[in-house]
């Protein structure tokens, strides 16, 4: 009972704060308190409804529906991200298990990890001469580090009891990796994948401003049209999509939470 009431209360507070925010935004914009011609919330909501009610039209690269652009961005992210996970997990396991792999690969990881992935964009364009592949490549570079580092850390800090059990049963190396190490480090892998996805979703918007098409390019295009309300629409959609993606990983992490 109490819980139901408090949930409803939380919801009511959230709605109220949203209403206040929308009204304040509208008032400030209308009065020109910030800058002149700043779009108000009503106008923004109007265009949000307009974009969302017909999301998938296609009138050439500079006039795509917001849904079409979103799907383009999501496709790039999912391909680059999946490739990165496919590379990062085995490599992370290798780094966690072998001192040799650890000491030979770690310098590169430490050196490359702090570099903004956008620095790789010209490299990608030069090598691939294709903006689509370059976008995927940039996302690949973005996504690889958190998953790699978390996986390697997971393996290195695995409970030695599990390995001893496996060894005492005479399990082969491959059985130990598949049946013991991988499930044991699943929480670490998922934590890494969650961070990777978050960063990839941040980077794709910036990368697409330079690549053409995608939700990032949509923002760049609307800036050229000086249509700030459409940029707000894109921000809302990007935020919402990122939230959903993050929640998905949160859900997976809960499923694989072994903590006692």
């Amino acid at each position: 009972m109490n819980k139901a009431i408090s949930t409803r209360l939380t919801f009511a507070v959230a709605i109220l704060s949203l209403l206040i925010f929308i009204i304040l935004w509208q008032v400030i914009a209308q009065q020109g308190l910030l800058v002149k011609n700043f779009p108000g919330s009503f106008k923004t909501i109007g265009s949000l409804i307009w974009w969302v009610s017909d999301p998938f039209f296609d009138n050439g690269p500079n006039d795509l529906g917001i849904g079409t652009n979103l799907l383009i961005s999501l496709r790039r992210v999912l391909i680059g991200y999946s490739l990165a996970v496919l590379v990062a997990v085995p490599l992370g396991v290798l780094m966690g298990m072998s001192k040799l792999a650890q000491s030979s690969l770690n310098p590169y990881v430490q050196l490359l990890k702090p570099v903004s992935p956008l620095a790789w964009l010209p490299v990608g364009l030069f090598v691939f001469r294709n903006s689509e592949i370059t976008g995927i490549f940039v996302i690949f570079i973005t996504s690889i580090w958190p998953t790699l580092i978390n996986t390697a850390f997971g393996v290195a800090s695995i409970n030695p009891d599990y390995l001893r059990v496996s060894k005492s049963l005479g399990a082969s190396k491959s059985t130990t990796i598949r049946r013991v190490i991988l499930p044991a480090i699943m929480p670490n892998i998922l934590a890494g994948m969650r961070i990777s996805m978050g960063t990839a979703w941040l980077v794709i918007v910036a990368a697409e401003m330079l690549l053409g098409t995608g939700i990032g390019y949509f923002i760049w295009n609307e800036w050229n049209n000086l249509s700030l309300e459409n940029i707000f629409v894109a921000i809302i959609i990007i935020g919402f999509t990122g939230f959903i993606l993050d929640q998905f990983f949160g859900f997976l992490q809960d499923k694989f939470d072994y903590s006692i």
Partner: protein
Amino acid sequence: MNKKSSKKSSSNENYSHLELFNLGKIFFKEKKFIDFRSKGNRSGFEAIKDINLKIEKNTFVSIIGPSGCGKSTLLNLIAGLQAPTSGKIVIDGQAIKGPGPDRGVIFQNYALMPWLTTIQNIEFALNTVFPAKTKADVKERARKYLRMVGLEKASNKFPKELSGGMKQRVAIARALSINPNMLLMDEPFGALDALTRSYLQDELLSIWRKNKVTVVLITHSIEEALLLSDKIVLMSSGPSAIISEEISVDLERPRDREKIEQDPKYLKIKMRLEKHLLRETRAVEEVT
């Protein structure tokens, strides 16, 4: 089962089940560049040395010693989880090269895989040791051993949903499911409350009687060792711990927890063990 009994009866009893010859273990620090020249003794820590021991088939042997003397080290060597620095370990007349399913190991903190249910933990052991067995066979066998420790109702629970005593029973079932000839236990009941401990001790005894396994039990409880064992092995304080005494416990079985404490034989051995442990523990304290 058939396989095991035939294996056991075919052995020519010229040798004991487990024999340790001049066993020693030195832990070397990880080599650094500077250490290259001083290879050998200086950088190592000698945990145990010159351990000689014979354990007969189907007997129950306890190992007692002051904390940190090297009991776990000795058990890990027998399990084949670590390699000895010197000496050798012979099982059924054959020097061991590493771990093997002829020895079931029970670890101090249960060591159940938290991502597997109770029954899956046992199935993991079975699948690893008997890869040729069908899924149904494995499941059937896992069930049988869960029933043996009275946990068939908890077969689909995860370790985090079990009490400490239940977890240890799963670990016992897992170790027994692979049908080992020898059970190696490292302070299996140390973390349990007194009631659960006595309950599991009784259970272990009945399992031991029914399954005919050789048990090597590490414990720090004199009462536990006296209640359960045929032989008690006393270790001296480390470093370079040795076996300082072997005591046979020729008390009649089944032993009654209450009555046994009035037995003069029991009291005599108990006194001897207490004296030894006190002396060795004092030795540890004087060093540190």
